[in-house]
């Protein structure tokens, strides 16, 4: 009887410690939808559907139509209200439309002029960083106006606005995980299909990345 008790204590003790050590913390993972590009490297597209994937956006003068009527408006401190500064948080999807991560987009004035930076976290894979010269203030608002949208009114159609420079100066760098040792470039295109009466945007943001191993 004593032997049974001792063995059971040892098993309970060891099993619990083994569980604490070996029990994995994992995130559900979907297959990475990458493709090989003709001149080498790997291409991967990330999608953000508006308004469903928008978690939040800052207000302030730079918010423009992207913060009008949006859910989760973040109130900037008064000191930043008139700055060229906009912060947006999104869910991120793969090319097939499945949610795979979350992302933050920061746009604002720096010593280099306006810049855009993205931090994309795919929990099962790691983090990816995108940076580029920023679009002009109110770029999306002006593109919509030129497509016939009037402030306060509904609009529908199809309008593609590319927010990255065309000179290939955009950069993709690794933020950690399986993206380590990857670098490349990206394009960011907003394909807008509507503005509803509350002012909320409808459309898709496409982030097309091309990366190579360093």
């Amino acid at each position: 009887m004593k032997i049974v008790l001792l063995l059971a204590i040892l098993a309970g003790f060891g099993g619990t410690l083994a569980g604490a050590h070996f029990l994995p913390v994992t995130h559900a993972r979907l297959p990475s939808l990458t493709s090989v590009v003709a001149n080498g490297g790997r291409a991967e597209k990330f999608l953000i559907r508006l308004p469903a994937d928008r978690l939040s956006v800052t207000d302030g003068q730079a918010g423009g139509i992207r913060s009008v009527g949006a859910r989760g408006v973040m109130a900037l401190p008064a000191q930043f209200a008139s700055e060229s500064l906009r912060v947006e948080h999104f869910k991120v999807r793969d090319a097939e439309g499945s949610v795979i991560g979350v992302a933050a987009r920061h746009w604002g004035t720096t010593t280099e002029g306006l810049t855009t930076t993205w931090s994309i976290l795919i929990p099962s894979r790691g983090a990816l960083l995108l940076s580029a010269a920023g679009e002009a203030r109110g770029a999306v608002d002006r593109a919509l106006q030129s497509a016939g949208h009037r402030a306060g009114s509904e609009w529908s159609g199809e309008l593609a606005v590319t927010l990255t420079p065309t000179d290939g100066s955009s950069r993709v760098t690794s933020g950690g995980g399986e993206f380590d040792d990857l670098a490349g470039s990206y394009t960011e295109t907003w394909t807008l299909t509507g503005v509803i009466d509350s002012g909320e945007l409808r459309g898709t943001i496409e982030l097309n990345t091309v990366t190579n191993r360093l």
Partner: protein
Amino acid sequence: MRHLFVALFGLLLGAAAAGVLLYYNPVTDTSAAVPGRADRLLRYSLPDQVLEFSLGEVAELLGQSAGDDPLWEDTINRTAVLGLVLNDDVDQPAAIASRLMAASADTDLLLHGVVVSDYWLVTIPGEGSLFVRAESNVWPFLKRTLVPVWYFDRPWQGPAEYRPTVGPGPDNTARVLGLSGVFGDQDGSAVERYNVTALDPVNRSAAVVGELYLHLPGLQVAAQD
């Protein structure tokens, strides 16, 4: 039958002993060293300076509501998104930070503690943006403050300081990567320190003041030039 009861009792006894060992295991108490003088110090206060907090459905620790639009998808239900205003050393708003957090695969209750991958994107208007990649051990906070007070109704012992950064840089530091403006291509390190200043399980509220110590050697050189 008697042997079965004895075995079951023994298993429970062994598991309980292991639980006590895990709870008091000093190996998992890892935290960053007391940070020295920073090249840049950014401060935050919770909940006052929170712009947004989205939480994965299975990432709740404090019994918070995951909100109307939680991160419910299987792929992101152990993540959190926190928008913060960061103050400078004279307590004026100086930056906006987006913290994307996820439970880390390095979590190991025997050797490392409960580790959270914490990715900061920080923008200082007029200067630039930088990225901080931190691994934070939240186990000391959980076992000393949250679990006893929040879940076991023990009296709160008062303000407590934590320095959760445990990597991925050397000496328990986070890695900093400059992305744009004055921080472009600057590498460095960072350490986070925070104080839990209030904790009220009845009202489900907590107050925290925190600091992010940024060490950017390249920035010092540029300033001297």
